[in-house]
């Protein structure tokens, strides 16, 4: 029997979210609604009590929903409605024609699709999807990003969405999006454009996380606070959904935000309560019950933070150098991600001036630095001279020209120098910056021996503390005192900032007090910081670990780190840098003092600071690739507007000039001097081999479209030659273009839950091909095993995620391909078993092409020869690079999976290395000549560690994955070769590579090979941190005597 609404009682719906409480109430089923929202600052029960007291009628049915519903349901028998069901109830009651419901909350995102007309089964039981672990693309991401930009909610409300003006932001992760935003803001991109780009990224993120190939249908109902508050966000949905409907052949329709959108869940809960038989609640009794406190938390807790500063912690004061020349002055500038820091230091190490600027505008910061330095110089004693200007940090590339810098110092090097100045025996340096965390291991001479740069998942810890404190109503300066006053600390996970924030919400829900949550967050800091470099800490025993960065001003954070280091680095002293947030600027200045720009033998030049009144304006976007990177020009004051001092925003060195011709000439000149074999391989793999002649007369014309992704980076030469040998014309075997930000943005909304980026990019490639059309067969092979040079391994299997990825294509595109009258072919191919491969190829393509098995086999023979020809040619070029790396010149082996040569996946590292003067090559390009290898592996062979030069069993006996085994082999090659550095690439979330990480690292360390590990590659191009890592790597190469070629 259906419940009957009671007219003698009212109804109240409560939505307890991560940051707010929303209440909807009415006096009777046909009465008007009253709604109210308030932020709860971690005290949700009290907030509910207050709003219920304000809005509720004396007697009412109560429905509760939201992530924090338990704070109410623990105290009274309210009807608990999951947020999704509350939203469904709302939609059914008030917007019954909606076909799709998309609801964004503080931490959650939900999509509900009602299929069919009223009464259809799909309406009664709609498809329901909710976001998984990550809260990217929800309200919390928008809040954090707006806070970073200094844009208020009201300002963001007025921002219109212009699809053509959006900038490329990461859509996968809120932290990544934040990183991109900060970089764009520093480049001078207007705030309105950034906010519109944020809306765009939020929509794309949700199309990934929620739709997963499911097409949201019209009319689409947008619910939740973000949709209600930001019309531009709704416009972004409308644009993206229209685009999706166009590609998938769906009928376009309305996308709308109802007036009650912000209170939809609360209204849904109230409506559900109206339909229930439960006893009505009394307003005053409920208020008393809610005011009784939040009850016992359920989470695991850690003990309070140490009440005393551990004895191992030293806080030296900054000391001048009595023997130094106080007449020499150097300006050091650290143009950071959010704050510009500058110091004027003399030769006696006196800090004459220090400024910290956070205008968010690099040009304004430069002007302010110059002005402050000029004042300090004016006040300096006669006879003193500004000898050098040294810049470092994220913005060094454009800050340097504006200030007429004499030195550009690699950020890691600057921090190492600063640490050594504070603690001459520094063994480890930990700098927690605004955007990244750097951990540097220093050798006895103070040079960087190893380094870890985390620009990804651990990013923004300092900011996380700040934003959490604000959320909890704790003043910025009060974080340490609050955290230290807590008697317990809920145990946060070790994940990225977004996950830490999700934990924070969970703890608030469980009733932890604000100071306890802050204590827990502070306790999480060292776990996150030392997650990568923890094992290196053990080597610091007897020496100093120096803590740098602004967060080290926080006493609670220092104590938490010291406690952790007591375990990880027993016997080490923990030294808090005397000027922790200025360490980068200070290090740059000290570096310049030690290395006068005009050479040590000459007297230093007397420099004057330019009068800086820089202007920032848009510059033409770079046109050298499909990414069309938007650029900004920074001109010094007084200079002609078309003569920029610096260009900012370009994604690679090619974009560093406004003149495309000059850029091309410079690139060609560099190519001649420094071969980028890695980049060459990426392009050459997909070129037609003119030596391949048709082995059979074509029976019928079949046009193939093939995504340039994943296993095709291994199999393309073979597959292309096979199809050509069967009579296909060159233009009938079409590959998608290389991965680019533009290609990814256009085709990224087909969605998989969350595999690695190369797998997700496959869908964007297929989207590109399907959108262009003009093919008869979409060919996406499932390559299960690969041919490799490695012998004796357990197997040469493909990664299961990669091999299964064509199933994603089938799920997302089967209908679209069929609608174009084409076929989707995803044959299983075992490249390692010739007999099986022959059968698989003929079995999957023979009927379509009208070929016999014999013809197919002959074509495969042709293809095998073509593939071997490609490999031989590449290895010959590799030999040229290796032979050229002599007389002190080094080269770089990029240790990665075959598909990492895709420039959009490896973020153009080959070109970046070439710009630094180092040629690069892949494992595939290494020589396979046994005599050549035997000479280099002679020791391994002599002591019986390996049976032949292609044996890796001593490194990982159970190696069974083709890419993993090749990584091990390549690492040994580099370790034995003598002139190679190693750039070790791996995609975020690649557990296949995790198994090889330790043996590779150990082998390279033992052989003293300069190594740079970038193990979290993802869709976002970490331009600045990538460049910093590569510059540090180049520094390490030079220090090992491996010079650049230019």
């Amino acid at each position, binding site marked *: 029997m259906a419940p009957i609404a009671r007219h003698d009682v009212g109804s109240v719906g409560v939505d307890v979210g991560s940051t707010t409480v929303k209440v909807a109430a009415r006096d009777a089923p046909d009465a008007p609604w009253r709604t109210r929202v308030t932020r709860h600052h971690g005290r949700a029960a009290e907030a509910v009590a207050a709003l219920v007291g304000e809005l509720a009628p004396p007697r009412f049915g109560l429905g509760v929903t939201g992530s924090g519903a338990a704070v109410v349901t623990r105290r009274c028998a309210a009807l608990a409605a999951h947020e999704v069901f509350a939203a469904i109830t709302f939609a059914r009651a008030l917007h019954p024609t909606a076909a799709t419901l998309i609801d964004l909350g503080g931490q959650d995102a939900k999509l509900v699709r009602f299929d069919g007309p009223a009464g259809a089964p799909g309406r009664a039981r709609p498809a329901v999807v909710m976001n998984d672990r990550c809260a990217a693309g929800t309200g919390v991401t928008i809040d954090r990003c707006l806070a970073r930009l200094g844009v208020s909610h009201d300002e963001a409300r007025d921002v219109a969405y212009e699809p053509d003006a959006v900038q490329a932001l990461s859509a996968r992760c809120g932290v990544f999006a934040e990183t991109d935003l900060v970089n764009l803001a520093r480049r001078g991109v207007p705030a309105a454009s950034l906010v519109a780009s944020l809306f765009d990224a939020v929509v794309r993120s949700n199309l990934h996380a929620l739709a997963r190939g499911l097409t949201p249908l019209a009319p689409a109902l947008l619910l939740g606070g973000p949709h209600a508050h930001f019309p531009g966000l709704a416009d972004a949905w409308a644009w993206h959904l229209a685009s999706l409907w166009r590609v998938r052949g769906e009928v376009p329709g309305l996308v709308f935000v109802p007036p009650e959108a912000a209170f939809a869940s609360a209204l849904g809960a109230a409506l559900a309560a109206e339909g229930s038989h439960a006893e009505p609640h009394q307003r005053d009794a409920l208020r008393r019950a809610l005011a009784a406190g939040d009850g016992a938390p359920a989470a695991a807790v850690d003990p309070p933070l140490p009440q005393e500063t551990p004895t191992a912690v030293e806080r030296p004061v900054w000391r001048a150098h009595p023997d130094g020349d106080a007449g020499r002055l150097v300006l050091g500038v650290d143009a950071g991600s959010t704050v510009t820091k500058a110091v004027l230091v003399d030769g006696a190490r006196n800090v004459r001036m220090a400024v910290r600027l956070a205008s968010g505008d690099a040009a304004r910061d430069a002007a302010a630095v110059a002005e402050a330095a000029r004042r300090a110089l004016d006040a300096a004693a006669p006879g003193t001279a500004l000898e050098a200007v040294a810049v470092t940090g994220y913005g060094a590339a454009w800050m340097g020209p504006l200030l007429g810098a004499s030195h550009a110092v690699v950020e890691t090097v600057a921090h190492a120098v600063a640490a050594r100045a504070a603690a001459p025996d520094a063994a480890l340096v930990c700098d927690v910056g605004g955007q990244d965390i750097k951990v540097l291991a220093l050798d006895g001479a103070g040079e960087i021996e190893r380094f870890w740069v985390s620009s990804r998942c651990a990013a923004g810890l300092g900011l996380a503390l700040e934003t959490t404190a604000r959320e909890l109503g704790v003043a910025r300066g009060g974080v340490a005192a609050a955290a230290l006053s807590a008697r317990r600390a809920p145990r946060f996970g070790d994940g990225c900032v977004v996950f830490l924030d*999700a934990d924070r919400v969970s703890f608030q829900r469980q009733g932890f007090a604000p100071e306890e949550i802050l204590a827990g967050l502070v306790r999480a800091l060292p776990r996150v910081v030392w997650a990568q470099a923890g094992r290196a800490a053990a080597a610091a025993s007897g020496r100093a670990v120096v803590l740098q960065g602004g967060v080290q001003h926080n006493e609670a954070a220092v104590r938490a780190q010291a406690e952790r280091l007591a375990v990880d680095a027993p016997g080490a002293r923990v030294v808090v840098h005397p000027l922790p947030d200025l360490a980068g600027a200070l290090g740059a200045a000290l570096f310049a003092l030690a290395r006068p720009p005009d050479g040590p033998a000459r007297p230093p030049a007397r420099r004057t600071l330019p009068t800086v009144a820089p202007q920032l304006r848009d510059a033409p976007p770079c046109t050298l690739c499909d990414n069309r990177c938007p650029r900004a020009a920074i001109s010094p004051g007084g200079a002609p507007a078309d003569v920029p001092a610096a260009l900012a925003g370009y994604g690679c060195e090619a974009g560093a000039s406004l003149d495309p011709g000059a850029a091309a000439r410079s690139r060609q000149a560099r190519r001649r001097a420094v071969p980028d074999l890695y980049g060459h391989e990426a392009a050459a793999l997909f070129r037609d081999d003119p030596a391949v002649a048709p082995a059979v007369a074509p029976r019928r014309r079949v046009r193939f479209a093939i995504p340039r992704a994943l296993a095709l980076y291994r199999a393309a030469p073979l597959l292309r030659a096979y199809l050509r040998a069967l009579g296909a014309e060159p233009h009938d075997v079409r590959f998608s273009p290389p991965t680019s930000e533009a290609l990814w943005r256009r085709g990224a909304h087909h969605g998989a839950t969350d595999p690695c980026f190369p797998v997700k990019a496959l869908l964007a490639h297929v989207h590109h091909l399907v959108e262009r059309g003009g093919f008869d067969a979409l060919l996406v092979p499932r390559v299960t095993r690969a041919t490799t040079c490695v012998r004796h391994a357990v197997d040469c299997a493909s990664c299961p995620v990669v091999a299964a990825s064509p199933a994603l294509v089938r799920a997302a595109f089967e209908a679209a391909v069929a609608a174009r009258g084409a076929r989707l072919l995803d044959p299983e191919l075992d490249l390692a078993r010739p007999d099986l491969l022959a059968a698989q190829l003929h079995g999957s393509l023979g009927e379509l092409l009208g070929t016999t098995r014999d013809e197919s086999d002959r074509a495969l023979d042709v293809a095998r020869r073509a593939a071997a020809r490609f490999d031989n040619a590449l290895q010959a070029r590799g030999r040229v690079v290796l032979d050229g790396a002599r007389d002190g010149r080094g080269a770089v082996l990029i240790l990665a999976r075959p598909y990492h040569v895709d420039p959009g996946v490896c973020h153009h590292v080959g070109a970046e290395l070439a710009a630094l003067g180092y040629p690069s090559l892949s494992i595939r390009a290494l020589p396979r000549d046994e005599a050549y290898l035997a000479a280099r592996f002679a020791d391994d062979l002599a002591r019986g560690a390996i049976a032949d030069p292609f044996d890796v069993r001593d490194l990982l006996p159970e190696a069974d994955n083709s890419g993993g085994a090749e990584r091990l082999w390549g690492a040994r090659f580099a370790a034995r070769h003598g002139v190679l550095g190693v750039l070790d690439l791996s995609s975020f979330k690649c557990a296949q590579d995790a198994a090889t990480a330790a043996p590779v690292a150990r082998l390279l360390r033992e052989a003293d090979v300069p190594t740079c590990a970038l193990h979290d590659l993802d869709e976002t191009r970490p331009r600045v941190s990538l460049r910093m890592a590569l510059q540090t790597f180049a520094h390490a190469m030079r220090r090992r005597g491996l010079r650049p070629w230019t």
Partner: protein
Amino acid sequence: MDVILGFGPAHDRLFAAALRGLGRSAEAAAPPDDGDLALGRRLMPRGHPSAMYYLAGAAARHAGPRPDRRFVVPGDRCGGYASDLARALVDAGVPGAAVLALAPERATSLWRDLELDPGRAAPALAEAVAVGDVLDAAAARARLADVAAERAVDAALADAERALTAGASAEGALRRHAAALSPGAPPRARVRLTGELLATRYDRAVGAGLARWLAARGVAAEAPTLTEWLLYAAWRAASDGAVLASTQRALLDALRRAAETAGVAPPSPIDPAAWADAARRWLPVSLCAGSGFMELATWLAVDRDRDADLVLSLKPFASITSSAASDAVIQTLARGAATPFLALELNGDLQAQLESRLELALQVALWSPP
């Protein structure tokens, strides 16, 4: 000394007991807890699935500084981590630590690696596996009842362990406790667990306590049997149909006997061979996909037989094998199917979020909106 870890709290003890009964020196490690996750993260490089860190932490905690321990663990994800785990243990101060990962996909020779005579060892080990499966099923039902029922399962386990250690059959132990092990009232709903072995077998930490959370709501969480895992291993290793059939028969007979003795029926093991063709369209069965392949087979089987209301994949963060199936295939396949599928990514955090997603999936599965 062989240390057994990773097969499940009951199976670790019974497997070790059976080895002792065969005259070997063996012991079981304590089940992983959240402290082990933190410890494991400090010992192993980044990028491993969280299950790996639990395993490494539990192994290091168990070994302490005692030398020459060989950890016998299931080779999920093809066992590609064995050397890395051994290295981490040695680095952590466990001299001479070795790891033997029994990987189904690699057809690891169980008898050779364990240095056992199959003729003598097979019956004892098959019985240990079967008794563990039956006691797991009994424990799942006991969680729905009360503490006394859970104690009864513990007592049966201790008796079975003693019997196997003595080289005897555990049948008597099961018979003695049969009355207390019998299932009580039927559950409100049934959730079939799948995913990585550690996550499905160690509910308290690795599995985020979700089986217990479900039990508190009257829902039975049915973990896959270890017999099923061994059937998969046998199928992977089989080059001879007769040998495969005889292995399957031995395992299934042992399970049937134990189930009949205890009066408890564990979930029917999935026969991978039977599902290979159905799965092939979505996931290459020749692939080293491990639990990923079994995930797909499980979902297909449950969807056909309708013997559970929801299939829940417990997927450690960054688990490539499980990702291959649950991210790439089943999320899409399950749309519009009779049995819903939910994959939860576990990383030792976000408990409230996991429970919220599970609650929603349950409500959708049962379609019981408030």
